[in-house]
């Protein structure tokens, strides 16, 4: 039971953005991925749940090969939640409907049960007051927390977070990070692509430093952030801290 990424290569046309990445995420583990923009971190997440095809290598989720032709991706994605930088709320549905939709239509749960799940998850991320509201009436931080609840409503085994605070106003970052902290304290297995170095240091079991499509350093935060070994890591941390 784990996410195994094995020597993954990924190109967009002539541009190779991931140049052989391997990494394993064990159950209950929180791995943060840090690195400059364009280093391929976000693309890696897309490859993990099959939203982007890969050129070579393998991604195994609980032993299932994501990029195998025979794999039912729709079924597999029920186990992996993802939250994007742009929260992608469904504008034509209320907050409650946004979260209920997938449990009902993908998992086929009856309406009452889906609603109960949605209310529970929305309460969990602190949006119990906003059930009947349309996303356009929410702040960016609230929309992002709704997107997290929407992913959680599928009861995923794994959660992927793709720079979930990058598009937010600074004063709204805290509420979303609090939600992530809560999830990690509950033992959720997560890969968190982030620019928030302090946050990565605080919640992660391990931190991976991405540079030019490769993992340059991976290990406990005290090592990668506290005592980086490679000059690229040192330079990057200097530029962001």
């Amino acid at each position: 039971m784990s996410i195994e990424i094995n020597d993954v290569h990924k190109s967009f046309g002539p541009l190779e953005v991931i140049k052989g990445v391997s990494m394993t995420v064990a159950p209950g583990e929180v791995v943060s991925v840090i690195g400059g923009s364009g280093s391929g971190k976000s693309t890696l997440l897309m490859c993990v749940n099959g939203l982007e095809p890969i050129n070579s290598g393998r991604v195994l989720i609980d032993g299932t090969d994501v990029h195998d032709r025979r794999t039912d991706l729709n079924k597999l994605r029920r186990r992996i939640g993802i939250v994007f930088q742009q929260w992608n709320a469904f504008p034509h549905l209320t907050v409650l409907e946004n979260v209920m939709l997938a449990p009902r239509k993908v998992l086929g749960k009856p309406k009452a049960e889906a609603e109960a799940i949605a209310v529970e998850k929305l309460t969990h991320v602190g949006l119990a007051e906003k059930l009947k509201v349309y996303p356009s009436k929410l702040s960016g931080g609230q929309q992002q927390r709704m997107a997290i609840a929407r992913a959680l409503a599928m009861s995923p085994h794994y959660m992927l977070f793709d720079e979930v605070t990058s598009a937010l106003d600074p004063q709204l970052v805290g509420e979303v990070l609090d939600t992530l902290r809560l999830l990690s304290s509950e033992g959720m297995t997560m890969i968190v692509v982030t620019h928030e170095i302090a946050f990565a240091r605080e919640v992660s079991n391990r931190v991976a430093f991405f540079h030019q499509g490769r993992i340059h350093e991976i290990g406990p935060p005290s090592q990668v952030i506290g005592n980086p070994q490679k000059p690229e890591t040192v330079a990057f941390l200097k530029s962001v801290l």
Partner: protein
Amino acid sequence: MKYTFHWLPALRALPDMLWGALVTLEVAVLSMLLGVVFAVLLALASQSRIWILRAFATSWVELARNTPALFQIYMAYFGLGSFGIYIDSFPALLAGITFNNAGYLAETFRGGMRAVPDTQMRAARSLGMGQIQAFRLIVLPQLFRVVYYPMTNQMVWAILMTSLGVVVGLNNDLTGVTQELNVRSFRTFEYFALAAVIYYLIAKTVTLSARLIAWRLFRY
């Protein structure tokens, strides 16, 4: 002004004209329904990888948008005769307006597709929805909202365009009935003024009900 108006005969003809208005609505509604179907096919064809489909869609759209509606109706009525297809004025009018509607709506739909961001599809797929399910539940409702107002505009235009049927000899729609009455009595102004009022009321009813429906439909 020496002219004396005679409104009474015109008012007496009102029931006939209202029956004509029903035919007008019939043509307009049918031309919209068919127009939407063709427009969807054209919008899809214009994205196709097969060049002949793209060329066909482009020709249709550009012809519909760059020639007069009256010309398009003429073409259906007189032009098709050269292919041995002789059609009545009603189907000719319907064909002409449908051709026109489809051309304009195809552009509307294409624009609508661009207005719904790809990220919506991606977010839906990441929740485990299939391609078709995601399109139906997430993309389509948003697309519908974008094209709703242009579609109601097109509906009003379709109603106004039906008046051109008289030019190819249609005599049972609102304009056709009015013209028949006019030929018999030469009270041109009175009859056509009444027809204008009826057209105006139909157009306004369509616009207002579309707005009411939109208000119920689009709460976000």
